[in-house]
């Protein structure tokens, strides 16, 4: 099939998420990978929002800004999003006057009342219309609706199916004959997931038992998953603020429970003193930082990669920490797992950097897998310890860690500079330098196991595009398009961004960074820490995710 993008646009509260979810699932059930991303305003009702579905023969997990099909559920949204419809694209709306030859008019609400019995089934009518326009057979939609609504009873299923049928039948004769190619069914199966859906599962698999968080978009889905699925075994508490959240998690961690929290930039700002505490008391913690545009409240429901350097520097004083930046929902599983492992082994805070785009967009993945084995605990064996000192000076800087109550050994943690036994000290001659060295040594060892970037022809291409985290799909697509036009382009994609892995990169190459921020934060890091000369920096900071067209436009 030819790749196509379908935009469903409307106001918050009008059900476009429902329509988008059903239609994406129809393509997937039919054997085709769909990528679904949405952008919306920070409000409960009204405004302009869109759900964008991209379908192709192979997964295309990257945003597009041009629609082949635009379905507008209200006239305001139609006017607002109309420029996104490509020339010759198909416009679907409930009312005219629209005399374009590529316009399809379907009275969603009238058909819903007539066939479903209530106006609320307008979403099903719209889904039916979109399936017709997408070249899907109605039977696929019928199955998806039955599966989606079976828990709500037979009548709900009947009303949905009848309404969808009406939308499908209304659209079909209006679609120019032969222009909509029917898509043959395939027996391909995909996972359809967002990072906010995969991270909680990975955390539970890693043995996480405690999460405290304050609700903040776009991170809230993680704690919600633990509350919704008690079988995951993670205690989840809505804290009074982010300060409480991180301190609760550190208390739980000190008492032996794997613990995490999640937030966005503003909440992370409140957690920063706690991150420093984790560094000082050498207590593991995983923090998911789901980025959104700042400063301050910024654009609460939009996306950005603006907090890299903030996360990196977040915490007064000097102590090691790791920053991981997954690139897709499968990678989010792997990096979450790794975050708990690194936090536990090095007794440090580990931050998993996502963003609204990665947190909320649903990717189609050929496979979705959990690590084979559960994560080993790195608490020490109390039987092997004589006189216990929580901060015993060791060659690798890592002291045997016992938890409160694990044994008769007493565990003393202190946010002050401390002795090996964890008690306050102001011994500036021996202990302070030794404890600083101990913490720094952990950081030096950590560097050696940071994953190198994924390289695509980076060792031979003239131009190498560098990205990190969620921009992988867009950069890969841009590289593919440029190569198809005969340009010698490669890429480097980082998912472990701090400490930077040891890099061995060629000179004389044109390195360009691509990031969701205005100042080229990762470029600055590469220049200052790795001495890599960056020729150009492409930044997007309007609140929307980086797409291939943006990259191509900036390069041309």
């Amino acid at each position, binding site marked *: 099939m030819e790749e196509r993008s379908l935009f469903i646009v409307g106001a918050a509260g009008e059900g476009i998420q429902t329509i988008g979810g059903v239609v994406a699932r129809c393509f997937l059930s039919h054997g085709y990978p769909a990528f679904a991303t949405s952008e919306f305003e920070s409000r409960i009702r009204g405004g302009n929002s869109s759900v964008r579905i991209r379908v192709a023969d192979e997964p295309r997990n990257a945003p597009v800004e041009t629609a082949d099909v635009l379905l507008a559920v209200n006239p305001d949204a139609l006017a607002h999003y109309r420029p996104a419809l490509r020339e010759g694209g198909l416009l679907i709306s409930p009312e005219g006057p629209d005399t374009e030859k590529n316009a399809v008019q379907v009275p969603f609400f009238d058909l819903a009342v007539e066939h479903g019995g209530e106006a609320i089934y307008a979403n099903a009518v719209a889904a039916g219309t979109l399936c017709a326009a997408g070249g899907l057979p109605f039977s696929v939609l019928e199955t998806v609706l039955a599966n989606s609504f079976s828990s709500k009873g037979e009548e709900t299923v009947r009303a949905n199916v009848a309404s969808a049928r009406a939308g499908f039948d209304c659209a079909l004769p209006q679609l120019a004959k032969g222009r909509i190619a029917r898509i043959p069914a395939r027996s391909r199966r*995909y996972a359809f997931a967002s990072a906010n859906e995969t991270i909680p599962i990975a955390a539970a698999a890693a043995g996480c038992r*405690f999460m405290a968080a304050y609700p903040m978009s776009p991170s809230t889905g993680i704690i919600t998953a633990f509350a919704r699925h008690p079988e995951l075994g993670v205690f989840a508490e809505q804290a009074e603020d982010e*300060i*409480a959240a991180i301190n609760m998690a550190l208390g739980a961690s000190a008492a032996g*429970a794997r613990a995490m929290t999640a937030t966005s930039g503003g909440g992370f700002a409140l957690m920063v003193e706690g991150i420093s*505490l984790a560094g000082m008391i050498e207590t593991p913690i995983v923090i998911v930082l789901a980025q959104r545009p700042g400063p301050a409240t910024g654009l609460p429901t939009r996306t950005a990669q603006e907090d890299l350097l903030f996360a990196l520097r977040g915490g007064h004083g000097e102590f090691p920490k790791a920053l991981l930046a997954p690139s897709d929902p499968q990678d989010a599983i792997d990096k979450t797992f790794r975050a708990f492992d690194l936090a536990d082994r090095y007794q440090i805070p580990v931050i998993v950097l996502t963003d609204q785009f990665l947190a909320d967009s649903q990717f189609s993945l050929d496979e*979705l897998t959990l690590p084979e084995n559960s994560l080993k605990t790195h*608490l020490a064996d109390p039987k092997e310890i004589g006189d216990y000192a929580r901060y015993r000076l060791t060659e690798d800087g890592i002291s045997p860690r016992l938890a409160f109550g694990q044994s*008769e050994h*007493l565990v003393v943690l202190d946010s002050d500079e401390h002795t090996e036994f964890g008690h306050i000290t102001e011994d500036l001659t021996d202990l302070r330098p030794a404890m600083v060295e101990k913490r720094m040594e952990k950081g030096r060892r950590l560097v050696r196991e940071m994953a190198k970037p994924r390289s695509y022809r980076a060792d031979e291409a003239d131009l190498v595009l560098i990205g990190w985290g969620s921009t992988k799909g867009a950069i890969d697509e841009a590289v593919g398009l440029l190569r198809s036009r005969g340009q010698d382009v490669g890429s480097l994609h980082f998912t472990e961004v701090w400490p930077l892995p040891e890099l061995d990169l060629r000179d004389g190459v044109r390195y360009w960074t691509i990031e969701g921020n205005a100042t080229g934060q990762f470029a600055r890091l590469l220049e200052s820490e790795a001495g890599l000369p960056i020729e150009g920096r492409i930044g997007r900071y309007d609140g929307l995710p980086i797409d291939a067209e943006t990259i191509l436009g900036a390069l041309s």
Partner: protein
Amino acid sequence: MTSIDDYRCDVPNQWCSGCPNFGILTALKRALADLALEPHEICLVSGIGQAAKLPHYLRANVFNGLHGRAIPAAVGIHVANPGLKTIVTSGDGDLYGEGGNHFLHALRRNPNITVIVHNNQLYALTKGQAAPTTPRGERTRLQFDGVEVDPARMLTTAIAHDCTFVARGFAGDIDELSTILKRAIGHRGLSLVEVIQPCITWGNHSIDAYRERLDPVGEDHDSADRARAIELALKAPDRFATGVLYELPPRPTFAASYRKRVGSGALAELDPVDRSVLIKQVERLKIEY
């Protein structure tokens, strides 16, 4: 059997000589010994300040965290290992000021912890500024013309939120204080003990002057009488009602429903979540065709 010697710790003490904090330390050791708690069964949690150093002077597990954040850390410890006796011991500036929000929400959560507030009515470690408890008009080393705001009355707040154990002791009366602390630590749910602890370095009033302001609640006090308890608590900061002001039968403690699912052990001891549960969650994300 445990004796107070079991809690002896050879860490050099940084308190001023003669500080009433020593009285609190002794009273706490006595209460712990009376309850036959071994050092490893105890977790002391504190924030920052002179009072917050107490955990270093008593052999036990210690979480000496950030200024104002002792309570959330203690809540996390309580959830992760309810078998520990988790005791917060910190100052009024730390717990009522910097950590005031956490104090309020701890009252709602009712974790099974004891909170001991060393109340010296000022900030001592930072050299004598006003605390949330300093009376209006009191001159300090920052509020030179006298404090111009009213003091916080956090015991009243605790009683209003039905904290099931609210008491006040005096650091100069170790016998009575240890009796109160023993009852508080033995109580199931959040127990709050405020201890009047005159600052002998920066304070404007002598220990004896504080002693004269104490009003023991007396044996006939009905500690289940909320209105009376609030009335007594409202005497502060002019007079300090001492003893157990308010006590109710225990109510469900924090994380009770989670504990019903996983049992009462330390979370670190739990078996990993069954892999089939995790696989089912992953499979849920795969689309059938």
